[in-house]
């Protein structure tokens, strides 16, 4: 176990360094930068000399490898630099915007899991074949719906038409309902799809016949024998879907006007605010690494065969 952890942490460090380097190079390769975008604005009336001075102030005139080294060194010390656009350090910017996004994303994930589970069970247990087929085709539909459209439609229907969820001065809970649903549906769809397929597959396994021959009830067989075996592929996919969750948060926050990481990402992209983008990339990479580490640690708890070192069964 400790060996696994040590090697995974080593891998994580390499992944983070690669993510940092790749995003740094890509952001540098873009034409123009945040300083030009902000200060070249004719309304400011700055001369090229003055702009050049500002560039020196931000350290933007240094050779690229010096900038790379400086930025990396600052990141390692936990300092993510300055946002040119907002004129503030990135750290407090993240500190205020991270919690709403975390709350949105985690609620979205929980709701997605609940929807996926309910849908998969309904699709497996429904009494009629046509109903099962209908339910099984739902996830494909849910995947095809774009998040921004879904968000707008939900506001239209539930807030404007039905007036079920107020959008003016909502309570904290009310403000979360629609964004969470918007975010969770596209995540729930692939989860449900995998779970349906995996439940189907496990139900044909020989040990399920054995459980039935033992005289175990249907619910017993499904709950104890089928579900646990069917969870593993779902867990793996859930790790991968973390990226989907982030991308969804960007759109959802923009549509619903929530201040969060997604919102500042969107702004930073349009202003080419390199320092902010760099910080967000690293944050996302850390999130990915942690989620997948968690998945790897939980998987052997579900399937003990994963604990066996390779070759021991020969």
């Amino acid at each position, binding site marked *: 176990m400790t060996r696994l952890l040590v090697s995974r942490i080593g891998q994580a460090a390499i992944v983070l360094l690669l993510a940092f380097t790749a995003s740094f190079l890509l952001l540098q390769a873009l034409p123009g930068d945040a300083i030009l975008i902000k200060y070249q604005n004719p309304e400011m009336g700055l001369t090229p000399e003055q702009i050049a001075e500002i560039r020196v102030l931000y350290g933007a005139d240094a050779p690229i490898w010096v900038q790379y080294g400086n930025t990396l060194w600052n990141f390692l010390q936990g300092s993510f630099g300055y946002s040119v656009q907002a004129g503030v350090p990135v750290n407090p910017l993240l500190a205020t915007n991270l919690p709403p996004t975390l709350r949105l994303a985690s609620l979205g994930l929980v709701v997605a899991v609940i929807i996926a589970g309910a849908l998969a069970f309904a699709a497996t247990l429904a009494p009629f074949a046509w109903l099962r087929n209908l339910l099984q085709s739902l996830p494909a539909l849910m995947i095809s719906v774009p998040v921004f459209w879904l968000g707008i439609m939900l506001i239209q229907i539930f807030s404007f038409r039905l007036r079920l969820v107020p959008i003016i001065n909502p309570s904290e809970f009310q403000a979360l309902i629609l964004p969470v649903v918007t975010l969770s549906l596209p995540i729930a769809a692939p989860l449900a799809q995998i779970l349906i397929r995996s439940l189907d597959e496990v139900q044909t*396994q020989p040990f399920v016949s*054995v459980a*039935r021959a*033992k*005289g175990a009830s249907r619910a*017993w067989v499904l709950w104890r024998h089928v579900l*646990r075996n069917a969870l593993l592929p779902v867990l793996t996919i859930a790790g991968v879907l973390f990226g989907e969750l982030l991308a969804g948060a960007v759109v959802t926050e923009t549509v619903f006007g929530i201040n969060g990481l997604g919102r500042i990402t969107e702004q930073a992209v349009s202003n080419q605010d390199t320092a902010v983008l760099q910080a967000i990339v690293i944050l996302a990479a850390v999130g990915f690494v942690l989620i997948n580490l968690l998945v790897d640690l939980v998987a052997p708890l579900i*399937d*003990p065969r994963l604990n066996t070192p390779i070759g021991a069964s020969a």
Partner: protein
Amino acid sequence: MSNALLEVRNLSVDFHTARGTVHAVKNVSWSVNRGETLAILGESGSGKSVSASAVMNILDMPPAHIVGGEIFYDGQDLLKVSYETHRALNGKKIAMIFQDPLSHLNPVYTVGWQIVEMMTAHGRPADMARARALELIKRVGIADAEAALHKYPHQFSGGQRQRLMIAMALMLKPDILIADEPTTALDVTIQADVLALLKELQAETGMGLVLITHDLGVVAEIADRVVVMSKGEIVEAGTPRDIYHNAQHPYTRQLIGAAPGKGTIKLLDADAPLLLETRKLCKTYGEFTALKDVSLSLHRGQSLAVVGESGSGKSTLARSILRLEAADSGEALWKGRNLLTMNARDLLGMRREIQMVFQDPTQSLNPRMSVYQLISEGWDIHRLMPDKAKRQARVAELLEQVGLAPEYAARYPHQFSGGQRQRIAIARALALEPELIICDEAVSALDVSIQAQVIALLDDLRARLGISFLFIAHDLGVVRDFADTVVVMKAGEIVERGPTAQIFDAPRHPYTQRLLAANLDPDPDMQAQRRLAGAPA
């Protein structure tokens, strides 16, 4: 026989598939009494398991559909009782064990949990179940019962898993035990132990035993009565002795005739030139010794059998010779040249001369390739026969040689039966005109009647084309029919070698003696004699 413990009457089951309705069983009737063993004998696809699955209510419906019939247990028709009533009988009154206990045990729960489940699923308290489980695990011969409770299925050997499955089935002291191919996946010595255990337990509890099998030897060893099934119907019923000596139905006669181990034993042509020789081959995987100083020689036209149980290293031997696996030390000389140090180009040439046929043709034939592509691929690899017309003619010729129609060339593997697939694999091996064919359990996955045909085909190829065979097998009957020389392996070492007649008639090493004693004879009288002879030892 209305006082039978369990009686199946005129049962008919259809399977509705995309390609139409299949009558899986038609008007099948059988019964079993207390303390009696009924064998249901049949080959794959005969429907031998279907009626038992109907008894247990574990047929998947759809696609299965019970068309008619009755299943009587304790005065009630199990096909008419409610799901709940049937469920309450399962495990408690009628229990079942299966082939290949690895896939039939849930991989994510401990063995203890699954054995205890037999009682908790019926609402019995867990601590009582645990005590009973410990008692039964000891009874079926697992050494450390307490530790076994906490282990997972993959941590046991095949034989141990089957014992645990038997323990599980007996938890609620059922009246009837249905065993579906309980020993098919096991080595012969383990098979003998498991069958003996079943007999003992039956004597203790007086339960009725229904044993589903394809193996005449198992029938001869354990059954009181037997029904023979073919294509969904019972074609013959009686005592094993009656059936063996006075079979009426042509199918039964064919089945008995195909049983291996009854032919004349071949003699070795000692003057033939040496083809392959291994010297002190060694191979270890970590702690595990797969090969230890294995030396053998094979002459042109010879069929050398390597016999041993699982884990004896016989497949590793074949793979090391072909360099599909790197041996740790030793030599393998092919016509005097060491295969193990050969450079890549020479190795390619050698690979043409030595071909391999694997155990499972379903896995060894690429499902996306047509028969023509499968057979001709070797010519692409070795840049032979560029002319397409010639290739097509040769593929047709090869197909005929292995007893298949030339027009099958355009078909894909899934369109063939298991036996036909193995013929395709043999045609593929023959395409490169090899001098040696290594058969790794090449007939063990096949039904006996198909097995006999494939063995006859290989024998014919040997006689006509002078091909030598390295024949790896665990089935002694097949080996006796096919090989002229036998090498017996145990734990990576050769423990005995000699002409086939000598190994079978006068085995010297205790392990060989044990193997032969455990091998079941399809003739009930012979098997009874062997049992008596083997009993004191």
